[in-house]
C-alpha cells in the first residue's frame, strides 16, 4: 500500500515538472498527503490549526456563488463541520451562479442586517463586491475572503489556492505531454473572478516562457457549467480542427468539454487538463479523456475560513494570506488520492437553505 502510494507520487512527479523556483522563496515540496504531489510556492501561510473552542457561540454568515458543483458543496461541508467543532452557527447563502452578482450583494447586505458576528465571502466578482464588503466592514463586521477574491482590501484575511500554481501546473503538464509543440485552446471559467484570471494568465505565461511552440489558438470565458463547456468546446473543435490540447480553469467546463472531445472521437488524442475533481472529472480521467486535473482543497478552505473568523473574533492574530494545498490527479494515481480535503463525505448534502 505504502509502495503504491509512493509510486503514485513518483508518477505524478515524473509527469509534472513542478514549479516553485520562480519566486525565489520555497521550492516545491512533496505533500504529506499520500499519493499526491503537492506544489506550494508561497510567502503565505500553508498550515492553519484549529483554535481553541470559544466560550461564545458565534454566528457566522457565509456567502458563496452557488452550490451547483461539488467544489462548493465540499466548501459548504468545511464551513458547517468546522463550525460544529467550534460551537459556531453558520448561515450559508448561495447566489445561484456566477451571473447573479446582484443577488450576492443583497445577501451580504441581509447578513449585515441580521447582525452576524462575521461574514465569509467567496466573491462572484472582484470589483463587483467592493461595495458590499466595505458596507460590512463599516458596520463593524469582520470579513473573511475565501477562494474567490474581492478587490476590496477591507478583509481580515484571504484564504485560497495558489491559483498561479494551478495555471502553471497545467501548462507544464501540457508542455510535457505535447513534447513542446502543439495548439491549445482555453476554457477560462467565470469572467471577472480572481481564479479565472490568475490561473489563465499563469497558464499562458508559463507556456510562452517554457514551451514557446505550444500556441494558444483561442480562449473563452463562460459560466462554469458543463453545458457551457460542451457548447464552447464543440465550437472550438469546428473552428480549429488542429487542436491538440485543452486548458480548463474550472472542473465543470472540463466535464462538458470532455464530452465534446469524446463525442468528436478525439479522446486521448487531445491533452486535456482541468481543475478540481468532481465525480465526472474522475470518470473522464479514468477513461483517459481528461489527462490530468489539479485538485484544490475546498473542504480545507471552508474549515480555515471558520477558523480565521473565530480567531479574529477571539482577538487572536490572523495571517493576512493563506494558501490551501493542491495535488494532481492522473490516471496513474487515481486510486491513491486522499480526498478528505477535496470532497464532502459521500452522501452529505448541504442543509436545505
Amino acid at each position, binding site marked *: 500500500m505504502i509502495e503504491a502510494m509512493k509510486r503514485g507520487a513518483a508518477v505524478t512527479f515524473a509527469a509534472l515538472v513542478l514549479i516553485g523556483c520562480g519566486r525565489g522563496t520555497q521550492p516545491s515540496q512533496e505533500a504529506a498527503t499520500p499519493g499526491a504531489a503537492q506544489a506550494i510556492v508561497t510567502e503565505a501561510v500553508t498550515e492553519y490549526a484549529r483554535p481553541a473552542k470559544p466560550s461564545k457561540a458565534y454566528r457566522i454568515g457565509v456567502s458563496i456563488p452557488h452550490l451547483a458543483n461539488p467544489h462548493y458543496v465540499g466548501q459548504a461541508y468545511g464551513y458547517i463541520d468546522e463550525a460544529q467543532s467550534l460551537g459556531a452557527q453558520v448561515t450559508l447563502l448561495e447566489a*445561484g451562479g456566477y*451571473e447573479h*452578482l*446582484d443577488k450576492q450583494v443583497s*445577501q451580504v447586505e*441581509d447578513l449585515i442586517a441580521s*447582525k452576524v458576528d462575521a461574514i465569509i465571502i467567496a466573491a462572484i466578482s472582484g*470589483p463587483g463586491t467592493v*461595495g458590499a464588503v466595505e458596507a460590512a466592514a463599516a458596520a463593524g463586521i469582520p470579513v473573511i475572503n475565501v477562494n474567490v477574491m474581492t478587490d476590496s482590501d477591507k478583509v481580515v484575511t484571504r484564504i485560497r489556492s495558489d491559483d498561479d500554481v494551478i495555471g502553471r501546473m497545467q501548462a507544464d503538464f501540457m508542455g510535457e505531454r505535447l513534447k513542446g509543440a502543439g495548439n491549445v485552446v482555453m476554457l477560462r471559467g467565470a469572467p471577472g473572478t480572481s481564479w479565472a484570471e490568475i490561473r489563465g494568465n499563469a497558464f499562458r505565461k508559463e507556456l510562452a516562457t517554457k514551451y514557446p511552440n505550444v500556441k494558444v489558438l483561442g480562449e473563452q470565458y463562460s459560466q462554469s457549467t458543463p453545458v457551457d463547456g460542451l457548447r464552447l468546446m464543440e465550437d472550438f473543435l469546428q473552428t480549429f480542427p488542429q487542436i491538440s490540447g485543452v486548458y480548463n480553469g474550472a472542473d465543470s467546463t472540463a466535464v462538458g468539454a470532455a464530452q465534446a472531445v469524446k463525442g468528436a472521437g478525439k479522446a486521448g488524442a487531445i491533452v486535456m487538463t482541468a481543475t478540481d475533481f468532481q465525480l465526472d472529472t474522475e470518470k473522464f480521467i479514468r477513461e483517459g479523456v481528461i489527462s490530468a486535473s489539479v485538485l484544490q482543497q475546498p473542504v480545507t478552505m471552508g474549515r480555515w475560513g471558520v477558523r480565521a473568523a473565530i480567531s479574529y473574533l477571539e482577538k487572536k492574530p490572523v495571517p493576512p494570506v493563506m494558501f490551501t494545498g493542491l495535488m494532481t490527479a492522473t490516471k496513474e494515481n487515481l486510486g491513491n488520492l486522499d480526498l478528505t480535503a477535496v470532497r464532502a463525505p459521500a452522501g452529505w448534502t448541504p442543509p436545505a437553505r
Partner: protein
Amino acid sequence: MPAVIVALAIVFGSINPNFWSATNLANVSRQMSILALLALGQTFAILSGGIDLSVGSLLALVSVICAQQMKNFGLVEGIVAGILAGGFAGLVNGLIVARARVPPFIATLGMLVAARGAALTLSGGLPIAGLPREFLVLGAGYIGPFPIPTVIAAVAFVLAHGILRRTRFGRYVYAMGSNEEAAVLSGINVANYKMLVYITSGLFAGIAGVILTSRVISGQPTLGEVQELYSIAAVVIGGGRISGGVGGIGTTLMGVLVLGILGNGLNLVQVSSYIQNIVIGAIIVGAVYVDLARERRR
C-alpha cells in the same frame, strides 16, 4: 394585498426581530429600488396593452455603457450616458412596436437577446472595474435615514403616478390598453404614444441600471438575468391586468413590496434560496388567481 404585506412583515419580524431593525428596513428598501424602477416602466408597457421583456438585459447594457463612459469622460457623463442608453433602447423597442407593428412580446424579446449580446460585446464579457469611488455613494449612500436608491425610487413612483393620472399621455396609456381600436377611432395617435411608453420603460431601466452599477461599483455584462420576469410579476401580483388597461402605480407598488419583503424576509429567516423560488412562483400565480376570483364574484 396590503393585508398580505402586513402579515408577511409580522411573520418575518416575529421569527427574526432584526427584520424590523432600521438597518434592515433601509436594506430591504434599497434592494427593492431596482425592481421598483423596472416595474414602473413595465407598468406603462403592460397598462398600454404591451409588455417589455428587454428591461433585465437593459440593466446589463446600461451598466456596461455607464461604466465605460464614466471611465472615459467622468462621473456625470457616465450616469447620463447610462440613462440615455436605456432610453435609446426603449426608442428602438418603440419604433419596432409602433412603426413596424411587430408584436411587443416579439420586439422586446429580440431586444432582450440583442441587448445582452451588446453588453457582452462592448465589455468583451469582462467586468469593467476602476470606477471613481465617489460613484459608490449613489447606491450605498443615504439622504437622512433613507438610502439614496430608495429616495430615487420613491420620487419615480410619485412622478409616474402623476404622469398616469394627470397627463394626457397617462390617460391614453389606459385607453390603448383597454381597447386599442377604440383609442384609434377616437383620434389618439396610438403609434406616437406607444413609442413614448417604451421610451419611458427604457429610461426607468436606464436609471435602475445606473444605480445597480453603483451598487456593484463596476460595469457588469451579466447583470439583470430574469429581472424582466420579476418586473412583470410585480405588476400582476398587485392586481395589474396582464392584457392591459387595469392597474396602476399603486398596485405595482404592492407587487414590488410583496416580492421585496419575501426575498429579504426569507433570507433573514434562513429559507433555502431554492425553496424561496418555489414560494415566489406560487405567490405569483396565487395572487393573480385570488384577484380573478374576486373579480368573477362581482
